């Protein structure tokens, strides 16, 4: 039933919306901030919980130094309390991405049971040579591109992967990496840049590196319930894994023995083969030697034959010579005889001829004379002559025949001689060719002899080598045998979620906001209580008459008190609900956006906490309704008659300032009024200073957070890490190579310092932290890494001690002179003396000299990285290094700084939210106070208007107070802001980051100007209200 009383109460609100709204909004603000900040941690945990459940984060990770098999997986799958078990492969490798850019990636095998990838873009791999790439590191443009396994990888690494190229088919997040850090590696650079997820068939390993196990029992993320459930399974898993280790050892031993047997058999067969081959080869050489001897004998025989031929030839030659001489003589004799005979014959002939002619003449004369006798005689003479002639002719013919025969005889002899000469020539030629052949024979013989000798030597050498090899194999087999005999069960590790860096960091980092939530709400509720108290007190004051009337009408005290309690309670309930739903949505959202820099793994899950809402409601009701009740009770229980009479106005009082004559006397009455008004209502003064101071403090905190965080990139990469670029080299450099590198790069690098880097773990109060060790013999490194403490430059630590970055030193609880414990990758621990602690903002560093490094790590310093300053553009220098030198990767510091700066941009959200809260706080307080002041002083204001104050003077009469209080609040807010900022920064404690807790002077100025601007805005709005006050008010009776 809507009674007049109900209507009255409803109208009360409509009549004074400003007052109602002031209570409502301050409560909304306080509750929003309180529940928003409080629930942020819960929301984050809910987000994390949902994420790790959706993507099935492992409960235990089992590792064995001997690797794990499918049988092991099967075994664990069947273990009681185990829900699922999955074998996994994992390896770090150097990859080439895009334009030959080398990065170290960690490859994990994809599983559908445990650690399921969260696909962000693209699709799941279908073929074994496809992969998902780290969505945090790669952009969508990577999809469809290839990731190449770099030839830089060791054979061992390359062998673990089945392919040399994997096509990126999608981008994914992995529940194994809740935050940005991807871990360390023994490969170049020491830091893993990103992960890739490859189907199990994409690996070529014959055993699993890990088994991930999820348990039947679980619980909420980080809850004790979860911890207990996990703890319960730790021992069973440990003993099971140990047992599996023994099994694995046996199978490895059996395998190894089989292999050794095989090797031994192989050895024996090779030994046999060797022996036969050796015998064969030796025999062949012997045979060769014999053949050589034969050849020698033959040659010698031929030599003798040849000499014999020579002798015979000489004889034949001599025979021929004498033959020829005899022939020549015979011929000469013959020629002489022939010539003599012939000339005798010719002479005889001539005689005859002459006689003939005479005879003929005589005949002719005889004839002519007819002397017959004579003639007869003559004729007989002639016939005689004829007969002599014939005789001579016969004689001649006979001689000629004789000569012809002799001549024939001679020419026969000559022919014989000529044949002999030919024969001799031929023999001579034969001998000559025989000689040549023999010479060739000898040459061949020598060659063969030499060849044989060489062959013999070679064979001997070859066999000696083979023998050595065989001996080696034999030794190896023996060593393997002893090794296997001494082989112990593997080291096993049962690693819970708390060994996953992302998981543990998230626990720490998600609780940060909870810490921040501690201080704000107290403050806001205090302001809310003050606002409510002053407002309600004013309201009750205003309505004295009405209250009196109501009482006179017979309303009970309770009913009247309830009216006011209801008024403030309804405002605060509505405000509380608005604040709760606004705050629990806005704050977690903004904070999660900022957290996205590090933990961007899933959209935020909003949660509700009705207990928190109830608590907020309770506190806000206490601060409003309770305060209303307390502050009005005195008034409300007075007798109606008293209430009907005007309340004696709160007397004016002298303030301390009046004693300071020279100030007071210089003030005009308006200023005096302001001063007295300020001190007249202490509660209001307190509320105002608290509200405005709070606004100022919030602004300082907001800007201070930005100052502290945004400068990190600049400080870390401009003031501390002063080098322009860092290059990871393909191989460690010797001192000569370092000199050469420096000389070759002198054209574009102004400074280069070679360093040796290593990742170590440092046990600290907050768990094990990973730190980078930087060692060098080059002490000028301090020009590139500026080690400072409190503005003093530190010198590079001397041998035997180290310089430690401040956050690490703080976490490890060490200072100069203390001993720092570092854990090496093998798990052994070393203690090293701390020489100094230097300022650093990101990551943890331990600096030391080469000598210290070698004594601590027991290995030599490998200079595989170089820090350098470029002469010109560092990007150009990076390109030159990449192209012209044996460099694996070059990181330009400027690029990192820009990336970090970009990330820090999201921090502006925090600043905006803080400004928003501050503005809201300032507005509520200023509006409320102005509103109270104006309504309370309506009469005063009307009076001074009647007295002829100009509007400006009227305004300043009211607002000077606001300005003075605002300025006071600003000053009060400075220490409050500094403290608040420090508190918030101490709560925001990220593991690897060390904030530079500071506030720039300009932030104070901006905060102050903003606060004053809020005041001016409120004043401008309230001036309209002031102008609306009618002067007639001054004539009204005092209520």
């Amino acid at each position, binding site marked *: 039933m809507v009674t007049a009383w109900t209507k009255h109460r409803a109208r009360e609100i409509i009549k004074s919306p400003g007052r109602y709204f002031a209570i409502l909004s301050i409560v909304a603000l306080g509750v929003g901030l309180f529940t928003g900040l409080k629930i942020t941690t819960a929301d984050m945990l809910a987000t994390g919980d949902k994420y790790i459940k959706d993507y099935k984060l492992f409960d235990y990770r089992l590792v064995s130094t001997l690797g794990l098999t499918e049988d092991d997986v099967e075994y664990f799958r069947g273990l009681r309390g185990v829900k699922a078990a999955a074998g996994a492969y994992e390896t770090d490798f150097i990859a080439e991405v895009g334009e030959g850019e080398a990065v170290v990636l960690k490859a994990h095998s994809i599983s559908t049971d445990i650690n399921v990838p969260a696909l962000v873009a693209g699709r799941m791999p279908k073929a074994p040579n496809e992969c998902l790439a780290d969505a945090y590191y790669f952009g969508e443009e990577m999809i469809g591109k290839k990731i190449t396994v770099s030839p830089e990888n060791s054979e061992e690494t390359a062998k673990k992967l089945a392919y040399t190229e994997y096509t990126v088919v999608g981008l994914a997040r992995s529940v194994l990496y809740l935050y940005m850090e991807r871990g360390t590696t023994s490969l170049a650079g020491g830091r893993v840049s990103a992960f890739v997820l490859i189907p199990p068939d994409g690996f070529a390993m014959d055993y699993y590196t890990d088994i991930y196990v999820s348990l039947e029992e679980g619980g909420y993320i980080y809850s004790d319930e979860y911890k207990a459930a996990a703890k319960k399974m730790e021992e069973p898993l440990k003993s099971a894994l140990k047992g599996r280790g023994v099994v694995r050892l046996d199978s490895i031993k059996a395998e190894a023995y089989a292999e050794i047997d095989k090797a031994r058999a192989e050895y024996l067969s090779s030994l046999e083969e060797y022996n036969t081959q050796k015998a064969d080869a030796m025999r062949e050489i012997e045979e060769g030697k014999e053949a050589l001897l034969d050849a020698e004998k033959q040659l010698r025989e031929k030599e003798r034959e040849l000499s014999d031929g020579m002798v015979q030839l000489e004889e034949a030659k001599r025979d021929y010579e004498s033959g020829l001489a005899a022939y020549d003589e015979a011929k000469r004799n013959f020629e002489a005889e022939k010539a003599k005979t012939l000339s005798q014959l010719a002479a005889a002939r001539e005689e005859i001829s002459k006689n003939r002619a005479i005879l003929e003449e005589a005949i002719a004369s005889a004839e002519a004379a007819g002397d017959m006798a004579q003639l007869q005689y003559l004729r007989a003479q002639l016939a005689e002559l004829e007969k002599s002639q014939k005789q001579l002719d016969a004689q001649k013919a006979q001689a000629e025949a004789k000569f012809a025969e002799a001549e024939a005889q001679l020419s026969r002899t000559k022919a014989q001689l000529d044949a002999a000469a030919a024969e001799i020539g031929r023999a001579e030629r034969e001998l000559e060719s025989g000689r040549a052949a023999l010479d060739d024979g000898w040459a061949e013989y020598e060659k063969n002899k030499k060849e044989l000798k060489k062959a013999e030597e070679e064979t001997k050498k070859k066999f000696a080598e083979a023998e050595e090899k065989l001996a080696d194999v034999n030794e190896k087999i023996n060593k393997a045998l002893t090794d296997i005999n001494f082989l112990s069960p593997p080291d096993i590790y049962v690693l819970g979620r708390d060994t996953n860096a992302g998981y543990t960091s998230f626990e720490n980092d998600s609780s940060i906001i909870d810490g921040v939530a501690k201080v704000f709400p107290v403050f806001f509720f205090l302001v809310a209580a003050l606002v409510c108290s002053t407002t309600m007190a004013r309201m009750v004051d205003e309505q004295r008459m009405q209250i009196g009337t109501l009482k006179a009408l017979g309303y009970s005290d309770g009913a009247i008190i309830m009216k006011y309690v209801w008024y403030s309670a309804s405002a605060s309930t509505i405000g509380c609900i608005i604040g709760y739903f606004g705050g629990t949505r806005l704050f977690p959202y903004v904070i999660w956006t900022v957290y996205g820099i590090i933990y961007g793994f899933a959209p935020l899950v909003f949660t509700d906490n009705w207990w928190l809402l109830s608590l907020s409601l309770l506190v806000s009701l206490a601060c409003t309704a309770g305060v209303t009740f307390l502050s009005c009770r005195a008034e409300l229980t007075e007798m109606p008659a008293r209430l009907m009479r005007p309340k*004696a*106005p*709160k*007397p*004016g*009082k002298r303030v301390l300032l009046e004693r300071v004559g020279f100030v007071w006397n210089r003030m*005009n*009455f308006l200023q*005096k*009024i302001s001063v*007295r*008004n300020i001190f*007249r209502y202490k509660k209001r003064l307190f509320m105002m200073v608290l509200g405005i101071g709070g606004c100022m403090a919030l602004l300082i905190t907001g800007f201070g957070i930005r100052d502290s965080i945004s400068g990190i990139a600049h400080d870390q990469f401009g003031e501390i890490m002063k080098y322009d670029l860092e290059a990871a080299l393909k191989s460690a450099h010797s001192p000569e190579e370092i000199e050469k590198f420096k000389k070759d790069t002198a054209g574009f690098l102004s400074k280069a310092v070679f360093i040796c880097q290593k990742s170590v773990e440092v046990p600290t109060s907050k768990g094990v932290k990973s730190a980078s060790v930087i060692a060098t013999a080059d002490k000028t490194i301090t020009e590139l890494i500026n080690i400072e403490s409190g503005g003093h430059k530190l010198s590079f630590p001397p041998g035997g001690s180290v310089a430690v970055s401040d956050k690490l030193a703080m976490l490890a609880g060490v200072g100069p002179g203390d001993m720092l414990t570092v854990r090496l990758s093998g798990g052994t621990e070393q203690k090293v003396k701390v020489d100094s602690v230097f300022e650093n903002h990101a990551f943890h560093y331990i600096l030391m000299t080469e000598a210290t490094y070698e004594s601590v790590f027991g290995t030599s310093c490998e200079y595989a990285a170089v820090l350098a300053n470029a002469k010109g553009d560092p990007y150009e220098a990076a390109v030159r290094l990449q192209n012209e030198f044996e460099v694996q990767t070059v990181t330009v510091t400027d690029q990192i700084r820009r990336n970090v700066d970009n990330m820090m941009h999201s921090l502006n959200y925090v600043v905006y939210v803080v400004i928003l809260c501050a503005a809201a706080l300032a507005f509520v307080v200023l509006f409320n106070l102005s509103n109270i002041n104006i309504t309370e002083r309506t*009469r*005063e204001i*009307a*009076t*001074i*208007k*009647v*007295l*002829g*104050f*100009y*509007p400006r003077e009227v305004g300043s009469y009211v607002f000077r107070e606001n300005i003075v209080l605002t300025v006071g609040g600003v000053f009060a807010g400075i220490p409050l802001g500094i403290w608040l900022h420090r508190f918030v920064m101490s709560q925001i404690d990220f593991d690897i980051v060390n904030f530079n807790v500071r506030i720039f002077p300009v932030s104070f100025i901006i905060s102050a100007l903003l606060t004053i601007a809020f005041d001016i805005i409120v004043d401008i709005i309230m001036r309209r209200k002031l102008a609306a006050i009618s*002067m*007639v008010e*001054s*004539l009204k*009776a*005092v209520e």
Partner: protein
Amino acid sequence: MKPFVRLENVCKVYEGDGVRVEALRNVSFEIQRGEICVIIGQSGAGKTTLLNILGGMDTLTSGKVFLEGEEISAYGKMKLTAYRRFDIGFVFQFYNLIPNLTALENVELAAQLVRSPISPAKLLADVGLADRMHNFPAQLSGGEQQRVAIARALAKNPKLLLCDEPTGALDYQTGKAVLALLQRQSREKGMTVVIITHNTALTAMGDRVVSIKNGEISSVTLNCSPKPVEEIEW
């Protein structure tokens, strides 16, 4: 003699929410310099409206108001403020002192508004509060407060002193004393005083008595021999 204050056919109509109220209808009268004018009427007769108009606190619907020949009714907001500041002294029924200023400071508040104020300390001594000057209003009795209010009004050395039921919140004796003070000020300083009241007894002290009824002047009476306040009884 030219009238010091002159009202010509002043009409004031309040309009709002369809309700039309004629507060003043054709009001015309004059006041001479140095006179004490008592405006008398019942509650709701329109005397407060008349006071508002005379004091420059409200505008009128039609008609004219002159002070020393200046047409007040033609003034804009700023000029009206200046008029209130320099020409008018106002005494409220409930004193309206600024609670956190001392008596002296309350007078100074007004004195500092004008170019040639009368010394606040002297004025307070005049009204018999020389030894209470540094007291805050809450420490003063009603009569004392009203005397401070009168001193505050006089400090500006106004041309016209407007008093709205100056004794309304005071007991008889105190009220009488306050009225006597006003009368003395008028007589001694030649101050033109307008007293608005529903108390007919006060008509005896006025040089001119303006009766107002239902927004109209019912009579204007000149009183040739006004009585000293001390002699008036009510």
